[in-house]
C-alpha cells in the first residue's frame, strides 16, 4: 500500500499523538496513585511531627538546657529537613501549632525553630529569585517573630510584587507594633484595599498608643497611606486629628475626601458642616451622599433651608435623605411640602416617610 505525502503526514501525526496519549494514560495512573500515596504519607508525617513537637515541649527538665529526649527530637527534625516535602510539612505544623499554644510554649517552639535550622531555611528564602518563595520566607519569619532580619526585610517594602511587600508590611506591624508603622514613611507604592484589611487586622491588636503621630501620615504624598491611616484614626478614635481631617476635605483625591467625610461622620465633627455646605456645588455626587449621611447625625433645625434645596435633587439617595432629615429636624416645614409632585420618586419617598417610616 502506497501513501501520498499528505496521508503520510497525517498518519505520522496520528502515530505521534497516539504514543503521547498512551504515555499520558500511564502517567495519569501513576500521578493519581502518587498523589494518593503522597497525601497519605503527608498525613502520617504531619501526625508524627505534631507528636514530636508536643513531646519536645513537655520533655523540658528543670535546670537543664536541653533534656536527652529533646536532643533526640531535634536530631529527628534535622533529619527530616533534608527533604523539601518534609521541610514544608514541618514548617506548616510549626505554624499551625504556634497558633494553638501560649506563653512559654511559644518561646520553646520559637527556639526549637531556630535550633533545628528552619530559621536558616527561611532566611535563605529571602534571597530567592522567585518572588513567592521570598514572600513565604517573610511569612515564616513573621510567624516565628524573628526580629534580626529587619534590615533585609525593610528593603522589600517597595518590592514590585504586591505579595512580597504585603508580607514585608505585615512583618513590621506584627513584630514591631506601632513602631512598625514607620515603614509608611518610605512607602512609594500603593497599598491595596486587601493590604489595608490585612494590616488593619494586625493594628487592631495593638494597645492604644497616645504618642503615635498619625498627622504626618495623613499629610503623606502617598494617597494610599492617607487612606490607610484614616482607617486607623477611626479605629482608635483619634479625634485630635480633627484639624487635619478638615484639611483633607479639600484633598485632590476624591476617595480620600469621601473617606474623610465618613470619619467626620463617625466623630460627628460639627465644624465640617459649614465647610462642606459652602463648597457643596463643587463636590461629586458620592461626596454629596456621604455628606447627607453625615447630616443624618448632626443636622439641626438651622439646616432646614439647606435640606429644602435638595428635596428635589436628581439623585434618589440625596432626595431621600434630605426629606428624611428634614422630617426629623423641622417637621412643620416638612409638612408644608407639596405631597404630590410630578416626580414619581419624590412621591414614593414621601409616601414611605409618611405612611411607613415611623419617625
Amino acid at each position: 500500500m502506497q501513501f501520498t505525502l499528505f496521508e503520510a503526514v497525517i498518519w505520522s501525526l496520528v502515530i505521534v499523538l497516539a504514543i503521547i496519549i498512551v504515555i499520558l494514560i500511564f502517567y495519569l495512573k501513576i500521578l493519581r496513585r502518587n498523589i494518593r500515596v503522597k497525601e497519605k504519607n503527608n498525613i502520617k508525617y504531619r501526625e508524627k511531627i505534631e507528636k514530636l513537637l508536643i513531646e519536645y515541649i513537655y520533655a523540658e527538665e528543670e535546670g537543664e538546657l536541653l533534656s536527652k529526649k529533646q536532643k533526640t527530637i531535634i536530631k529527628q527534625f534535622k533529619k527530616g529537613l533534608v527533604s523539601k516535602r518534609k521541610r514544608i510539612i514541618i514548617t506548616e505544623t510549626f505554624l499551625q501549632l504556634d497558633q494553638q499554644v501560649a506563653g512559654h510554649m511559644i518561646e520553646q517552639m520559637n527556639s526549637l525553630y531556630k535550633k533545628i535550622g528552619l530559621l536558616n531555611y527561611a532566611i535563605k528564602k529571602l534571597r530567592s529569585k522567585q518572588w513567592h518563595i521570598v514572600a513565604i520566607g517573610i511569612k515564616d519569619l513573621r510567624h516565628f517573630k524573628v526580629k534580626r532580619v529587619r534590615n533585609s526585610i525593610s528593603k522589600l517594602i517597595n518590592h514590585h510584587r504586591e505579595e512580597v511587600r504585603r508580607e514585608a508590611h505585615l512583618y513590621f506591624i506584627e513584630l514591631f507594633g506601632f513602631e512598625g508603622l514607620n515603614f509608611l514613611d518610605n512607602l512609594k507604592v500603593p497599598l491595596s484595599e486587601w493590604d489595608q484589611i490585612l494590616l488593619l487586622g494586625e493594628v487592631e491588636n495593638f494597645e492604644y498608643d497616645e504618642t503615635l503621630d498619625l498627622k504626618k501620615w495623613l499629610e503623606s504624598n502617598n494617597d494610599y497611606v492617607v487612606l490607610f491611616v484614616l482607617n486607623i484614626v477611626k479605629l482608635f478614635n483619634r479625634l485630635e486629628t480633627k484639624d487635619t481631617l478638615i484639611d483633607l476635605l479639600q484633598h485632590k483625591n476624591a476617595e480620600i475626601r469621601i473617606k474623610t467625610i465618613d470619619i467626620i461622620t463617625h466623630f460627628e465633627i460639627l465644624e465640617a458642616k459649614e465647610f462642606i455646605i459652602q463648597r457643596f456645588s463643587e463636590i461629586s455626587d458620592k461626596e454629596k451622599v456621604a455628606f447627607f449621611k453625615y447630616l443624618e447625625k448632626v443636622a439641626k433645625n438651622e439646616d432646614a433651608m439647606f435640606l429644602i434645596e435638595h428635596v428635589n435633587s436628581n439623585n434618589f439617595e440625596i432626595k431621600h435623605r434630605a426629606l428624611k432629615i428634614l422630617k426629623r429636624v423641622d417637621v412643620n416645614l416638612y409638612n408644608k411640602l407639596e405631597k404630590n409632585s410630578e416626580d414619581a420618586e419624590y412621591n414614593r419617598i414621601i409616601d414611605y416617610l409618611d405612611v411607613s417610616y415611623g419617625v
Partner: protein
Amino acid sequence: MEYDYIIRNIVLVFHYFFLVFTVLIVGSYVILAVFSSRETIEYLKKNSFVNYKDLLTSDVAPSISIIAPAYNESLNIVENVRSLLSTHYVNYDVIIVNDGSKDDSLEKLIKAYDLERIEYLINQRVPTQPLRAGVFKSKNPAFEKLIVVDKENGGKADALNCGINISESRYLACIDVDCLLLEDSLQRMVKPFLEYTDRKVIASGGVIRIANSCKIEDGKLLEVNYPDKWLERCQILEYLRSFLLGRMAWARLNGLLVISGAFGLFDREIAIKVGGYDTKTVGEDMEIIVRMRRYMEEEKLPYKVAYIPDPLCWTEAPDNRKIFISQRNRWTRGTIEVLKIHKKIRWNPNYGVLGMLSYPYWMIFERYGPIVEVLGMIYFIFLIIYQPLSWSFILGLFLLVYLFSLLFSFVAIFTEEFTYHQYKRKGIGFKLILTVFLEPFILHPLVLYAAMRGNYDYYFNKKKKWGVMVRKGLSKS
C-alpha cells in the same frame, strides 16, 4: 469541461476554508492551553499563602449582596437558602427574588425563616416588573441577613435587576438559587476587587463544578463523587476543559467575555451604570459582561474581569438528553443575541482585546464553529462519495481529529490533577480516561445538535425563550 472546472474550484475553496479553519481552531486551543497553564501557575503561587480568615473579622471588608432569583423552586428553596446563609463572610446579605413563582416557594420561605412583610423604599435604578407580595425580612435575628422579595414574573434577568435595586452593597454576587457555594467562596471571589490599584475590577467569575452524585448535607458539600451516567460524566469533563483551560486563558489575556450566570461577582456601581441585566436576551450573563466591558472601554477606564479557578460553586447539571439539549440550545441563542447586540465592537480596535480578540474568537469559534463543523462533515461525505478518496486518508484524518480532542481533554484532566484533584477516589482515574475516549461520541454530537437547533430556533422560532430545567435537588444526590 467548464462545469467540471467550476466544481473543482468550488471544492478547492471549501477545501482551503476548512483547512484554514481547522488550523486556526487547533492553534487557538494550543495557545489557550499555554496561557491557561501560565495563569494557573501564577494564581496558585499568588494564593498559596493567603489567609482568607483576616477578611472574616474585618470592619472594613466590603459589603456583598448575594442575589438569587427563584422561579418555582419550592422543592429545594428552604435548603438552598440555608446553604446561602451559611456563607463565611463578615458583611453580606442574601436577597432571594421570588420571580412570580406559581408554586408555594414564598409560603415555604415565610414558614421556614419566620418572615414578615416590611416596608422597603426601593431605589428603582433599573426598571423591573412590579412587586407582588412585597419585601420580607425575618423576625428571627439568626436570619437577619435574609431579604426575600416577591415580584411579578419577569424572567431571570428581571429578577436579578430587582435584586440589584434592593441591594445597598458594594458588590453583587449573582447566583442560581440551587447552586451550592463553598463557605469561603465570597472571600475568594472578592479578593481581586480589593487587590488591584491600577485598574478597576468590574466582575469576577468562578469555576462551576458539577455536583451530580456528590454527597451533600445541610447545604454543605461532604464528598465529591463521579456520577454513573455518561451524560453527567461527559459534562464534568467538558466543564473541566471549559473552566480550567478556556476561561483561565482568557482571564490571562483580560479577554473574558462570559461569567457563568450560576455564580459571578459584580461591581454594583458599574452594573447599575450600564442598566443592569438585559431582559430581552436569554444570554443575560454574557451580555452584562460585554456591556460592562464596553462601557469601561468607551469611558477609557482601565479595568479587569477576574477569574477564580478554585472549585467554589457546585451545581446540578442536566442528567437527561432533552434538558441538556434545551440548555445548550439556549446558550447558542444567547451567544447569537449577544454578538448581534454588540456587533459594533467586532474588529473594532477602539475596544482593544475585547474588539480585536475576544469578540472575533467568540464569533468565529463559538458562534460559527458548530455550523462550520456540520458543513465540514457534509463536505467530507460529499468527498467520500464523489472523489476518489482512499480509506486510509479518511481513517487517518478521523483519527487525527479524534486524538487531538483526546489530547486537549487530557490536558484539562492533568490541570485538574495538579491543582485541585477533586476526584480523589481510587478507580475514578480509569473512569475519567474512559470518559475522555467516549465523550466525543456521547456529548459532542448532542452539543452540535443543540447548537444547530439553537441557530434554527433563533432565526425561525423567535417565540422560544428559556425552556424548562427540571431539578432533582442537590440534597437528594
